[in-house]
């Protein structure tokens, strides 16, 4: 298993991964009386956690087996179990730091002046959005970064040039954020560190954080970010844990058919920002 993951010798999803479309009922069906948490449910939207608890209590089902959390809480638990810092910049601090970076004269400001026009320091929100979009698509993984670059290069002219400026500006900003902050500069960066920690500890960081977990589930999203795909990949390849993606009814069929391709990268959590 370990070798396979490192070499990305297979394409598609391993057996331990199940993709559900519009099927919350099977998640609710796991409810049982228990003394340990067996199912870690990651719901990035806070109210979705409440909604699931409501459904369970309305149906008189016990909550015992479930832990409902956000993705950063899971990453923090894993990092803390490995004795590592789990601090990350929040959006307000990141935007302040971005403003600082963008008010200087550097590669990022040069590129973004071409992309957005005007003074980059005035476009902090757009720059942050570009950073987010690139992160969701690639998780800054070298294989996906290469694919992204190829997609940029094969775009028709002059879009290839614009997209290239956007890509290089975004990478420059991401690099500057990492240099300038002692904490993880974003939630995504925190999750990547947790992903690498799971791999580096051969799964023991996860096992310590969630000793009785048998399953991990992701719910309520219309896009599965590469960040979370890689985290799930690391956990299932190093630990005896099933992964379940609960996709939504509209986009689920489309995402289901792509998930295997997005999944198949070697060394999940690896980062190249070059």
């Amino acid at each position, binding site marked *: 298993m370990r070798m396979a993951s490192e070499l990305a010798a297979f394409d598609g999803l391993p057996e331990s991964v199940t993709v559900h479309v519009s099927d*919350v009922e099977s998640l609710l069906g796991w409810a049982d009386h228990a003394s340990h948490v067996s199912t870690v449910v990651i719901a990035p939207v806070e109210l979705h956690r409440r909604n699931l608890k409501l459904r369970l209590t309305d149906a008189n089902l016990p909550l015992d087996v479930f832990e409902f959390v956000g993705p950063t809480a899971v990453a923090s638990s894993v990092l803390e179990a490995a004795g590592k810092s789990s601090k990350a910049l929040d959006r307000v601090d990141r935007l302040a730091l971005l403003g600082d970076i963008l008010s200087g004269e550097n590669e990022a400001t040069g590129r973004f002046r071409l992309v957005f026009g005007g003074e980059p320091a005035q476009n902090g929100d757009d720059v942050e959005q570009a950073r987010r979009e690139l992160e969701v698509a690639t998780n800054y993984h070298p294989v996906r970064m290469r694919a992204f670059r190829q997609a940029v290069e094969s775009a028709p002219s002059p879009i290839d040039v614009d997209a290239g400026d956007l890509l290089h500006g975004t990478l420059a900003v991401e690099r500057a954020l990492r240099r300038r902050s002692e904490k993880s500069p974003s939630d995504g960066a925190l999750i990547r560190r947790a992903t690498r920690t799971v791999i580096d500890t051969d799964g023991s960081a996860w096992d310590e954080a969630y000793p009785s977990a048998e399953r991990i589930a992701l719910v309520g999203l219309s896009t599965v970010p590469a960040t979370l795909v890689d985290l799930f990949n690391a956990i299932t390849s190093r630990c005896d844990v099933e992964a379940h993606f609960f996709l939504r009814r509209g986009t689920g069929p489309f995402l289901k058919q792509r998930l295997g391709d997005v999944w198949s990268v070697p060394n999940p959590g690896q980062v190249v920002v070059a």
Partner: protein
Amino acid sequence: MTDAPSAVRFDAPNLDTDVPVAEIETTTTRYQEARAAMAVVAGLRDRGVPVRDIAVVARDLDSYEEPLTRAAIRHGVTPVFWTQIDLVETGLYRLVTSLCELFAAAEPDRELLLRPLEQEWTPQEATDEWPLPAEVLEETVHRLPQESRPTHAWNSLINEAAWADQRVVEYAEWVARDPEPTPTAVADVLGGVVELYRETVVPERRATDPPALLETETAARATVRMETLVEQVESKYSQRLADRWTDESWTAVHGMCESLARQRPGRREHANARALDIMEANDIWAREIPYVVAVGLVDGEWPTRANSTMPSELQHAILAGDGPAERLAPQTAWLAGRDLDQFHDTITAATTALIVTRHTHDVDGSQRTRSPLLDHIDVEPISRGARQRLLSADQALPSKIESMLPEETPATPEVTPDA
């Protein structure tokens, strides 16, 4: 826009809904649409449907919060908005920032000095009527000179004025203490202000609020969020001072309040079982509610195109996933996928009936067309006459909606009969 090289689709062309769907088209703006939606809610309530069995859903509450609030008042319904309150628009936020500005100024002028009183500042131990009555404030404005001076000078001036109301004297003394902008003092001053607002201003609102208790609701929500904001300001401010990222000043504190207040973090508001839930479609996922009223089924509103920094050609290459791009995670919001999901979630949430509404014109008069999402489901259109009766003084529930109610709905299901 050029045609996409190969079509990316998310969706099965036809959808089966498990429950009947009624569609109300209102011929004017979202204000009338909101009235129709609330008239349906009121009609269902009249038929004995408990308020917790109804929810109103919008893709984006920003544009519907105000129209729905107005319509709710007309129908005597108390709404609970499951969305973050826009803190910047609340009195409590203005009170807190007016204090930051006042303490930041070396020599405030009259306006700056009195603004916190205008925003309903109250003292630690309120013996008299607080917040300061408007006529006392007006008198004070009238009598005081306008020119800037240090707060201790304002204090002596007010202290010596024979006309000054005791409460204004008390306030001037408090201000003249000029708290240093240390993190602890900032947390004490701002935290204290929020607490006193909760103890004094919120109950006072409740006493004068009309039946729907909207202002009370807003004041209470603002208090809850401001408490969190003050905590965040304290920790962020200490951290930034330690990192030498900011200087110690009330201006820095003010800036931090502003950037934190403009964030809209996760939606969490307090639940109220007696009030009507009004939520955004993204939050209805996995819920089951007998009656769902979905507003804003208008093209460009639901669905709407998410804005992106990526050129659309690049978006398309990633969505299509040809060649190496297959490894890239596709973002379905680029093609309104999130809106489609939210529409499905809304349909799935309704366990007895779904009522969808839309408007045909914007406030500026431009035409709005029917959402293409509705093309995928079977709907019962509500006739013009039925809609007019719904919006008239009779508030008659359209018979098509009436027929969606279960046969034997007891008149007051919340009360168990004795026998």
